[in-house]
């Protein structure tokens, strides 16, 4: 047995085996139904929490496992085995983008009220940044929070919010100065209640996810729900981008590995012209290309992960990993679909779903174009 690729160690392989077992036993069998129903049940959260999976990286004092980002990385990769990008996205939004700002920037009381129940799977979180008029250009958001006695009144609209229908609380970016921009954005933890309206969106993929538009109409948010310092929200947004993108890269690596394994198995079983599909050189070479792509993506992603965990500020490496893996994953899924032929086009197989789900990668978490812009800056251009 060769050792796991750095930065992972044997303990992470053990965690991986147990996470994979849980997912294959408890979640994957329902994926098809959840996709059709365009909703995975809220009970998935407490179910995962019971295994400790919603708090792998969080301190024990808040009910977490006291692990670190490497443990979380294992989960990010393995979530692909649910076979439902939408379900993985819902869980991912909760643990990778909604709760980390509370953990990092929240005060003690906020952690008790939101992080603890989130780790237990009792309260579900969402992160609200994107708006109908502001996506990649985050500084252009227009949702306003007006100062009032004892807190803020929020008006505006957020869109493409994962967990947007089911979330009990939304970690929301708002303008707290008339100008907004880099120095005028703050974060509020907005609880679902009066004035908060959600409507689910229909999508190309990620069907089990309740991605939504959320409207805020004169929503009162108390002072104590201000997360971090006033007007320092842009920093909060940027702070978690690296992990969010790394989590996406890890998810792509997991999804690619699984898709390759399944397609190689299919090509070994399916016969045409007197032999297995994989006995045809053109197919064998495509599979070899796919395997190479998985290895490429893994090496790049693990290097970025190692640097991230090691306390470096690997902006370049994470950006490259995000850019490379998301497109590679989509291309690989499309190849898998092609090798499956007519079956690949049918909903009863996993492939067409995987291809649809993977298409979000080059858009979500910062589009490919934004990644190239960041890298252009890294290169001094």
């Amino acid at each position: 047995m060769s050792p796991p690729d750095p930065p992972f160690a044997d303990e992470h392989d053990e965690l991986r085996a147990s996470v994979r077992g849980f997912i294959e036993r408890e979640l994957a069998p329902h994926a098809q139904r959840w996709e059709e129903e365009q909703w995975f049940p809220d009970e998935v959260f407490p179910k995962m929490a019971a295994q400790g999976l919603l708090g792998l990286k969080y301190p024990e004092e808040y009910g977490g496992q006291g692990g670190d980002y490497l443990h979380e990385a294992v989960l990010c990769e393995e979530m692909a085995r649910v076979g439902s990008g939408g379900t993985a996205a819902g869980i991912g939004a909760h643990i990778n983008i909604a709760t980390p700002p509370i953990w990092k920037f929240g005060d003690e009381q906020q952690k008790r009220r939101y992080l603890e129940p989130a780790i237990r799977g009792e309260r579900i979180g969402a992160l609200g940044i994107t708006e109908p008029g502001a996506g990649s250009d985050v500084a252009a958001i227009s949702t306003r929070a007006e100062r009032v006695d004892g807190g803020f009144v929020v008006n505006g609209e957020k869109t493409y919010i994962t967990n947007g229908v089911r979330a009990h609380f939304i970690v929301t970016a708002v303008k707290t100065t008339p100008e907004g921009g880099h120095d005028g954005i703050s974060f509020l933890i907005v609880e679902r209640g009066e004035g908060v309206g959600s409507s689910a969106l229909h999508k190309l993929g990620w069907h089990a996810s309740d991605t939504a538009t959320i409207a805020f109409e004169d929503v009162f948010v108390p002072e104590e729900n201000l997360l971090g310092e006033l007007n320092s929200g842009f920093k909060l947004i940027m702070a978690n981008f690296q992990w969010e993108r790394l989590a996406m890269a890890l998810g792509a690596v997991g999804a690619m590995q699984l898709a390759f394994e399944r397609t190689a198995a299919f090509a070994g079983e399916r016969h045409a012209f007197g032999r297995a599909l994989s006995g045809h050189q053109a197919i064998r070479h495509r599979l070899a290309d796919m395997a190479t792509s998985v290895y490429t993506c893994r090496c790049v992603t693990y290097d970025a992960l190692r640097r991230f965990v090691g306390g470096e500020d690997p902006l370049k490496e994470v950006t490259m990993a995000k850019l490379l893996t998301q497109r590679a994953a989509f291309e690989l899924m499309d190849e898998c679909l092609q090798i499956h032929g007519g079956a690949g086009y049918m909903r009863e197989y996993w492939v067409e779903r995987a291809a649809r789900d993977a298409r979000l990668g080059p858009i979500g978490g910062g589009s490919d174009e934004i990644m190239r812009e960041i890298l252009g800056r890294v290169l001094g251009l």
Partner: protein
Amino acid sequence: MAATAESVLKPDFKTQRKHFIFTDEHEQLRESIRNFAIKELAPHAEEWEETTFPDSVFPRMGELGFLGLDKPEQYGGQGGDYYTSLVLAEEIGNANSGGLAMGIAVHTDMAMPPILAFGTEEQKQEWVVPAIKGEKILCLGITEPDAGSDVSGIKTRAVRDGEDYVINGSKTYITNGHRADAIVLVTKTDPDAGYDGFTLFLVPMDSPGVIREKKLVKLGMHASDTALLAFQDVRVPASAVLGQIGKGFYHIMWELQGERLIGAAGCVAGAQKCFERTLQYANERKAFGRSIGHFQVIRHKFAEMATKIESARQMVYVTAWRFNNGEYPVREISMAKLHAARVACEVADECIQIHGGAGYMREYGVERVWRDMRLNRIGAGTDEIMLDVIGRSYGL
């Protein structure tokens, strides 16, 4: 731990961070090879494209210890780990001469390893010791006019005759073939034994009957001398057998793994060098009122190239880590070789495009990189062979 707004908006992009496989010693070595390549080799790169690089490069590099970095000290090597030879493969790229890098790599990473691994003490003393000093030059003979990727199809025969062997056949595309003092030669000793019918020989190139037929003219790698060799009744003693009789095929398959990984490292370095040169050009060249690098489309081309190069580099490093740990990762080496060679060719082509007309001109050097890099998708196992090896590794 995570990025702060400040670092995103005003990042410190100059910071170069070490990869985990390298230590400070490797970085020092890197520095000294780089300085040597820039000072003593690069100034002659243009000239050597016309004349091939001179034999004197070997003793000079031997003197500096660069020809035996990862070779045992008892034979005059530096006794370093595998990563040291990776560093050489990367930094020799600063010579700006793909042909020179190839000539050196054939000597250090293709011909020497089988002698060290399978040779007798006498063979090591006779050839490896002077080779590490750069006093003797080595080459490796596998390919023939009628057998390339299909190594098992080679026809060069070695026939036992009393205490000796008599060798007949021909070898082609042999790097260092004209300058070499000895060749590690793949022959067939038993035509009926299939893969078990091959034997390696270590043949002095001044043996009667060894004919250096012609210098081959190539698309690129002009600084390298590439030969077509003929062997006509070349008589060698049994002590010229390298390794086990009948095991030559397996010996050479082993050798190819190290060669491919070193080749992949060379591809990454070549691509990186070409990238940096083009980045500088894009910052200086103005069009429509600004540096062309500041047009978004060009900027994104650089972002794509940087990502591709980094992906190949990570594959090489992680795979080298496994190799250095004593694993024999044939699948991963094949993947790294395949990917790195493709990346090098794609990057070189994109660099020509960014240079525009200048890229097409010899004086800018980019077209040379393009020509040099193109070999990597063919040499040491074609892309198609890599894909076959990878496919087979999954039982496909």
